[in-house]
Each structure stands twice: as C-alpha cells, then as structure tokens.
C-alpha cells in the first residue's frame, strides 16, 4: 500500500511529513537547549529596555489613527473646543443650525440691504 499522493505539482506523503516534523523538532530543541538557563521569567529580564524607564501599557504606546492629526488639532485647539461643545451628534440640532444660519443669511440679503 502506497502512502504517496501524486499531484501534477508534486507529491504528498504523510510518513515523510512526520519524519521531517520530528527532525525539525529535534533541531528546535537543540537551539532551545543552548539558551541561557539562568534566565528568569516574570522579572525585568523579559521586558524591553527603555533607558531604564518602566514599560508603558500597550494602549499608551499604540499609535492611533487619530494621532496622525495631533499637530493639526493641537494648533487649532481653541477652534475645536468650541466646535466640539456644539457637536452633539443629533441630526435635529444640525437642521436647527442649518435653518438658523440660513435665516440669518436670508435676513442679511433681504432685510439688511
């Protein structure tokens, strides 16, 4: 009984696959056994070196999409503060703003002249 499955692009033999798996396992173990045995888990030894500073949480060091606009938002802080205060997320408020500003423009165009 043959275990080999031949296909147009090559062949597949599970026994050969097992032999290679064992071989790579042995090589991996040999590399692992050469490691420093005095290495201590759960100490500072496993943490990255940041000039002696403590490692910040992942959330703190992650660059968020919003960070791309940081300089822009920082420079226009005064403007954004006002805008964010009136930005409620309620569509009815925006329609009211639209009508209000529209009324003012209309008043200037018609009544103001």
């Amino acid at each position, binding site marked *: 009984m043959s275990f080999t499955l031949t296909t147009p692009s090559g062949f597949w033999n599970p026994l050969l696959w097992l032999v290679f798996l064992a071989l790579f396992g042995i090589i991996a173990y040999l590399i692992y056994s050469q490691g420093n045995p*005095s290495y*201590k888990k759960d100490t*500072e030894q496993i943490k990255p*070196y940041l*000039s*002696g*500073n403590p490692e910040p949480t992942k959330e703190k060091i992650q660059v968020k999409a919003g960070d791309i606009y940081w300089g822009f938002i920082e420079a226009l802080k005064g403007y954004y503060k006002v805008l964010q205060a009136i930005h409620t997320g309620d569509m009815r408020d925006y329609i009211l703003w639209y009508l209000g500003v529209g009324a003012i423009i209309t008043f200037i165009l018609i009544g103001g002249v």
Partner: protein
Amino acid sequence: MGKLTNFKRSLWVFHASGGSCNACDIEIVAVLTPRYDAERFGIKLVGSPRHADVLLVTGAIPRDFADKLRRIYEQMPDPKAVVVIGNCGTTGGVFYDSYNIAGPIDEVIPVDVYVPGCPPRPEAIIDGIVKAWLKIEKLEKELEGKKE
C-alpha cells in the same frame, strides 16, 4: 591575578551614567580608543543591559535615577557584575550627603568592584573590568554547579 578559565565569551559591558560630571565617562571611552583598545580583547560597550555581562556605573545617582538604575540592573542576564567608576559612585564624592542623591551606588544596587579616582585612569578601569571578569567566572561556575 587569577587565570581566566571558564567564562569563554567576549565580555560585553553596558555603561549607565547617573549624574556624573562626564569626566569618568570620557575615561571609559578612552579605554576603547586606539591607545588602550580594550575591544581587541572582545571587551566592548553594548547598547542594552540585556546584552551585557558587566554594568559600569558612573555618577552619584540622583534620586530620580535610582529606580531606573535598579531596572537596568535587573534586566541584565546572569551571571553579571557591577563596576563603579569614580569617587562619585563609590562614596558620593563631592556630592556626599547632598539632598537629592540616592547614592553611593551600593545603596541602590549590589556592587562587585570599585574603581576610585576623580576620574580614574583608563588603566584602573581596565583593571576593574578584569576583576569583574574573574567575579563572573566564579558566578558562572556556581551556576554550572547548580545545573549539574
């Protein structure tokens, strides 16, 4: 001087400077320049304590540097040795008893070798590192003994 027998790798050194006037640090650099050229023996400065066998510390260690120095020491793999370069780190030097000083260094981390001087000569620094090398050999033998 004892025989170097067990520690077969090159000795890699990390330098942490806490509040030194920079003169000790310049002498450490002098050890690496062509006149003394410690690198020909494989003794070289590395950029991370995680790669280092020896920690060289200079300066009197200001309070806000003490926890950083402790962290740097803990990040070094075993076996490791600490060498203090200069009077500032050895005793506090001219900063002795200053309000903002956490040192001398042996009050922050354990120290194996003291190299006094203000600043010490490069020959003295090399001698200190060789002493640290002997200490590391001893520690390595102990570690191997534990493994067996």
